[in-house]
């Protein structure tokens, strides 16, 4: 009898243990980092730590190559096959939230109070996504070039004016030392154009969409300031300072091999440049009259609208918001950690670090791209308009056409809820 009781107790214990194991709920996660070994290792480490830290949830990841990621998510949403957790590029988030692919995050917002502004994905007054890092652009050059050309070093407090910037390009061209004065990265297409070049437009006083209403581009993309920007933009190519069509190899290696005096490039390329030269300078954007601007917002984590476990998904995201993980990502892939405390833990962004300047740029100059679901269409229209103007199209006509196209899309989508 005693042995029977022992057996029953053992069975009950085993059953309780197995149901505890089965009580763990699986959360699926999609991530854009397939093919990047370092990034994959870090995200896998976070998942492993999270899974070991509690007994309610188990996160399983499926990685996609970045270039295929957005299309895969849209297709997954159409087929009703989204995961619990996904990551999203900052400017795309409003579109996915508006389309019903995402739901607001359930995390303690006090934890992200000191995060860089570009890392917070807020749409319609609610936080939908949060990034562990941001990216920033700077005007890359060398101290020796500035010395040779007789140019002062611009600072965050006193960036170059538009006139000073054009003077720098003219002097670089006149020196005859470079194939072109400025590497704009026109070889990179897609999101690079609005991310890298719309801040110039904003510094001139224009924008891609009127942010006061988000229902039109009229006046901001084809008004006086925008035309002034467009004329300046076209001048970069007609004056021979930059190339409207660029060999991708020159984008990757041109500045590092001495073909350009200046390069408009992101912090992700900075380490390679530091390897190439000892006197590299990462300069702030020039001020064309309305303040110096650079783009903001990179990849962020969010919860799919179809997730049946938003509490678990949010718990994972909140878990990932630890300085040590922010620092790991920064050390691993060179991006800017979202907090100053995490920056202090990194090799490149700690005070006095070789890339610390980017943290300051992000804080001081970053402006998120228009926070509207219509951005994804407007961004493509903007890219085409800039490429056309670079190749000689009439500035006013091209910008007017772009406005018509953007406004037609906004109208077709009932003002995207604005």
């Amino acid at each position, binding site marked *: 009898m005693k042995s029977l009781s022992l057996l029953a107790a053992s069975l009950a214990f085993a059953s309780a243990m197995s149901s505890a194991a089965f009580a763990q709920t699986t959360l699926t996660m*999609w991530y854009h980092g*397939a*093919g*990047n*070994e370092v990034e994959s290792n870090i995200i896998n480490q976070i998942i492993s730590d999270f899974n070991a830290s509690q007994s309610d949830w188990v996160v399983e990841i*499926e*990685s*996609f*190559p*970045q*270039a*295929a990621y957005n*299309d*895969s998510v849209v*297709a*997954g949403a*159409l*087929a*009703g*096959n989204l995961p619990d957790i996904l990551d999203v590029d900052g400017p795309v988030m409003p579109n996915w939230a508006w389309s019903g692919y995402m739901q607001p995050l359930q995390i303690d917002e006090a934890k992200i109070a000191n995060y860089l502004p570009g890392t917070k994905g807020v749409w319609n007054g609610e936080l939908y996504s949060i990034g562990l890092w941001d990216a920033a652009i700077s005007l890359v050059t060398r101290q020796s070039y500035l010395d040779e050309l007789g140019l002062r070093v611009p600072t965050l407090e006193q960036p170059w004016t538009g006139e000073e910037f054009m003077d720098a390009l003219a002097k670089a061209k006149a020196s005859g030392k470079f194939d072109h004065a400025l590497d704009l990265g026109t070889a990179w297409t897609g999101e690079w154009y609005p991310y890298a070049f719309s801040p110039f437009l904003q510094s001139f006083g224009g924008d891609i969409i009127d942010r006061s209403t988000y229902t039109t581009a009229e006046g901001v993309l084809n008004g006086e300031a925008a035309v002034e920007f467009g004329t300046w933009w076209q001048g970069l190519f007609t004056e021979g300072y930059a190339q409207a069509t660029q*060999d*991708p*190899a020159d984008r*990757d*290696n041109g500045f590092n*091999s001495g073909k350009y005096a200046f390069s408009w490039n*992101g912090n*992700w*390329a900075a380490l*390679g440049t530091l390897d190439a030269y000892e006197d590299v300078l990462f300069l702030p954007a020039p001020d064309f009259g309305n303040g110096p601007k650079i783009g903001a917002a990179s990849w962020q984590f969010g919860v799919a609208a179809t997730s049946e476990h938003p509490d678990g998904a949010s718990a994972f995201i909140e878990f990932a918001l630890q300085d040590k993980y922010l620092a790991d990502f920064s050390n691993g892939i060179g991006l800017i950690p979202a907090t100053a405390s995490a920056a202090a833990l990194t090799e490149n962004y700690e005070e006095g670090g070789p890339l610390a300047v980017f943290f300051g740029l992000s804080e001081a100059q970053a402006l998120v791209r228009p926070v509207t679901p219509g951005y994804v269409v407007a961004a493509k229209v903007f890219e085409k308009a800039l490429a056309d103007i670079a190749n000689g199209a009439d500035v006013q006509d091209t910008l007017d056409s772009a406005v018509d196209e953007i406004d037609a899309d906004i109208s077709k989508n009932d003002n995207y809820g604005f």
Partner: protein
Amino acid sequence: MAQITADNHGLRLVVRYTVLGLIALMFVFPLVFMLMSSLKPDAQLLSDTRSLRAFLPVGDISLDNYFDAFRRAPVGLFIFNSVVVTGITVVLSLMVCSAAAFAFVFVDWRGRELVLTLILATLIVPFETIAIPLLLIASKLPWLGLDGLSYGWLNSYQVQIIPFVADGLTIFLFVQYFKDLPGELIEAARVEGASWWQVYRRIVMPLAGPVLATAAILKFLAMYNQYLWPLMVVQEETYRPVMVGLQYFFQLNRAWGEIMAYLSLITVPVLAFYLFLQRAFIASIASTGVKG
């Protein structure tokens, strides 16, 4: 009138082969560039692009890019997936489309002209326009597998194969070829009591070698190069094909050498398949211009 002499005949041959050689080089250069670049580190690869060195195995040559490519992505799995999907689709497509074409050309049934016209009309419909409806259907279809009945074909081989088994172009190729076969052969067989199946299997298909090769190559290329559809229906790495896998190498800082190594690896099955069928393929292309 100019005489053909041994001298100018020889000259003509030299000119002809020079021109043909130059044309051949134009087509071969990209492949040579790809192969040579796959052996060079990125910095050298980029600096060589503006000289003939780009086509030569010079400088710092190694297989490092190939090892790195295998480290970055499951290259073997992607090639296996593509070969499986492409191979099965090609075989099924040849069977189904040739049988359909046989029915259109040799079997007399009401409405066949109309149905054939409708099938050929699908040639002008781009795949992109039907991709989303097809995705919605595929995501709900039932499937009887080893695990029993399930719903939804996403993340599987069948979702990459079955929608492409029958297509207007392959049926059209077979119809055109079958129309040129002598009708007397079919009539004689029928008079002798052969069934339609026997006519198809024992008379028509043995004569269809060239069109089989052409259809197989065209289908192979179309399937092997599939990108949009697998992107939409395959979320699990386990089923991803080579073209989606190519995107693994397009990171912010592109690894050009690895990209060239990956491209070289995934080109091998295509070249092997083409070389295997090239004699029949050329015969088929040549025969399309000969009306007897």
